[in-house]
């Protein structure tokens, strides 16, 4: 009897071990062994005849929130849409890159931020479907520069634009009034029209009579980013060469932001930090460069106290800040259906709806004439005609070459450069050298 129990116990243990080991091996081997690379797009054959499309996005992307998935599902009863959302793009993007190169773990549709799109068109175009050829996609409906950003050098359009971020200047009427500046949005726009240095002059005027405890802008890094976005060239030239050290636009932005910091016109804040959020509700600064998607953010943070205090005027020179693309990975199981979905989601009509519900500004020029955009007013911002203000800005956005490392360069220029000038009083030259050193180290493979 003892034998029997012993052996059976051994058998159980062995079985357990083998199961574990098998599970382990299977777990590791899954990626390579699986014949269907669209790992997470599983459930494609869930209900017979019903296709499930997965959409990978970052942050509160808005497509779901605006009800666009529901609408598409209604129009196409045999399609089911599921969204996988990652909170921050810093986490979403590296994962997307590794998934693309291994060909697994991908959603059928993947969103890509504008700061990353050049890396996709440059090195990963072969892993993505050419959406330019999808039926229903009209190149002419889009802003040309947006279309170009999602297109490779040899003309393959791998990403269709969703939204863009043409910039204006959001300002507080109450603070402007106390400081003796005009408050009407036309007059405010004229204060600095066409030239960033006039923005600096307005700041100096503001400072002379500034209400106690307030500054003209939130922080120097924000000013720098806004100027950089509005130049003809930023970090790369049209040939794709890295020119950030000699680019006139980069230099202009750096110098101007440093002047803001040195003249004490900033509240020394870094954007999207808790202290920045607090400053909105405390009203500690008077202006901030704002793309349309930031209006909702300001409303959230400034709250009821800020109601009717804010307004939005034209920027000295408009630039583009943010915006995204939708792509379809080749490894997906439902490429055709996914491409159709993308074409529908990025069509002017849907973009106008997204703007109406989520304030994501359309990248399709054809949407600007639609009532959702043309007649849009923002009650929180003193009924500013935001649709027209930003449509005008969008037309003035320069066609700026973007490069694969734009995101890294701009973050380091801010975090290890201008932030020090603003918050620690580092001399601009020293801070520039430091930022360049960090960037060079970061770009060196």
């Amino acid at each position, binding site marked *: 009897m003892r034998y029997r129990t012993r*052996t059976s116990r051994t058998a159980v243990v062995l079985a357990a071990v083998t199961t*574990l080991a098998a599970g382990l091996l299977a777990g590791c081997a899954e990626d390579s062994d699986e014949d269907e690379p669209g790992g997470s797009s599983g459930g494609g054959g869930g209900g017979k005849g019903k296709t499930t499309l997965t959409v990978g996005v970052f942050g509160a992307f808005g497509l779901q929130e605006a009800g666009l998935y529901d609408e598409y599902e209604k129009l196409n009863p045999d399609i089911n849409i599921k969204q996988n959302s990652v909170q921050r793009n810093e986490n979403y993007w590296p994962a997307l890159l590794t998934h693309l190169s291994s060909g697994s773990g991908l959603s059928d549709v993947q969103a890509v931020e504008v700061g990353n799109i050049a890396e996709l068109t440059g090195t990963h175009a072969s892993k993505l479907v050419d959406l330019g050829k999808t039926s229903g996609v009209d190149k002419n409906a889009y802003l040309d520069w947006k279309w170009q950003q999602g297109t490779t050098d040899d003309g393959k359009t791998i990403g269709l634009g969703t939204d863009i971020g043409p910039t204006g200047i959001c300002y507080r009427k109450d603070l402007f009034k106390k400081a003796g500046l005009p408050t009407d949005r036309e007059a405010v726009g004229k204060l600095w029209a066409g030239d960033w240095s006039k923005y600096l002059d307005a700041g100096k005027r503001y400072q002379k009579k500034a209400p106690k405890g307030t500054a003209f802008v939130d922080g120097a890094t924000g000013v720098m980013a806004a100027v950089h976005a509005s130049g003809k060239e930023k970090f790369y030239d049209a040939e794709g060469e890295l020119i950030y050290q000699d680019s006139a636009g980069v230099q202009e932005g750096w110098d101007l932001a440093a002047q803001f910091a040195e003249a004490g016109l900033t509240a020394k804040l870094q954007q999207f930090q808790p202290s920045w959020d607090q400053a909105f509700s405390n009203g500690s600064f008077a202006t901030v460069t704002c793309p349309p998607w930031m209006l909702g953010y300001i409303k959230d943070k400034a709250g009821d106290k800020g109601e009717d205090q804010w307004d939005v005027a034209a920027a000295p020179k408009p630039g583009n800040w943010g915006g995204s693309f939708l792509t379809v990975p080749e490894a997906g199981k439902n490429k055709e259906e996914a491409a159709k979905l993308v074409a529908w989601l990025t069509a002017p009509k849907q973009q106008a709806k997204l703007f109406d519900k989520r304030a994501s500004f359309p990248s399709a020029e054809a949407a600007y004439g639609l009532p959702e955009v043309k007649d849009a007013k923002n009650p929180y911002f003193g009924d500013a005609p935001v649709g027209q203000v930003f449509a005008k800005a969008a037309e003035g956005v320069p066609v700026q070459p973007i490069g694969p490392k734009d995101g890294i360069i701009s973050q380091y220029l801010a975090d290890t450069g201008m932030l*020090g000038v603003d918050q620690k009083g580092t001399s601009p030259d020293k801070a520039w050298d430091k930022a360049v050193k960090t960037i060079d180290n970061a770009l060196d493979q």
Partner: protein
Amino acid sequence: MTDIPSDTRTAAPSTGEEGAAPRARAVAALDPAAERRRARRSRRYRWDMKWSPYALIAPFFLFFIAFGLFPLLYTGWASLHRVELGTPTDMEWVGLRNFSRLLEDDFFWNALRNTFTIGIISTVPQLVMALGIAHLLHYRLRGSMFFRVAILTPYATSVAAATLVFVLMFSRTDHGMINWALGLIGVDAVDWQNGDWTAQFAVSSIVIWRWTGYNALIYLAAMQAIPNDLYESAALDGASRWQQFRHVTIPSLRPTILFTCVVSTIGATQLFGEPLLFSQGASPTGGSDHQFQTLGLYLYEQGWFNQHLGRSSAIAWTMFLILVLIGLVNWAISRWIRRSA
């Protein structure tokens, strides 16, 4: 154990036996099959005894190989290549270049220095305080269980939650609790995050807060194992509480202290979450001057932010080698202590 040999003995009659009875012969006729069966059983049993411990421990090693050893070796392999995060399969052999460039990489040395200083200013007070707290808890206290659980709660909080609270407390603006408290005693507000030492102090304070209780409990457990007669005879000799602590408690705790030193040193070398979340926007640079960037953070920055997996792997391996070195030093010290004791 003992029943098998005897069992086998009776079960396997010797073939040379004489005057076997017919019944015995009948049994003998069955012999070859039965004997084989028995032999098989006994062999199986011997294997069982010999191998099942290995089978039982195998799951751990399988997991260790898959998630510990393999990544370690593969990281070593990757560190000899130029590998980018975007194209991880595309590896270009560069030999030891990723290591040699670390020698002239200011950011690496800066991170190493920061790791060292943060390690010192977090580990030393942490262990000293843990020892003191353990000593206090060792006394008969009312509600001692409550205190023991209470000091362990920081250890049970997540790094992220704890760090976020500390970020608010060390905030530069007037809303920071620490600056507010300093203001009460007439000290000007400190820009904690932007100063070299203040930032490192702030990061260390998170580590101290989280780990002191844990170490205190380990010390407490070791203290409770010290025989009471030692204290009694010390008391008879007229030793004060402090003298008892110095001459009885500390020497008996030596191995435990060494253990906590090793564990804390390893933890300090790998410090990552606290400095990452302490910086605004969880940026991997560890402040605008890299003033609190640790090795772990630099590794992360190179690999996942700058997307250079090869360079990142080289940093990982350097960290590993540093830990091996620290381990060796510890081993030498413990041997020396044992010998001198």
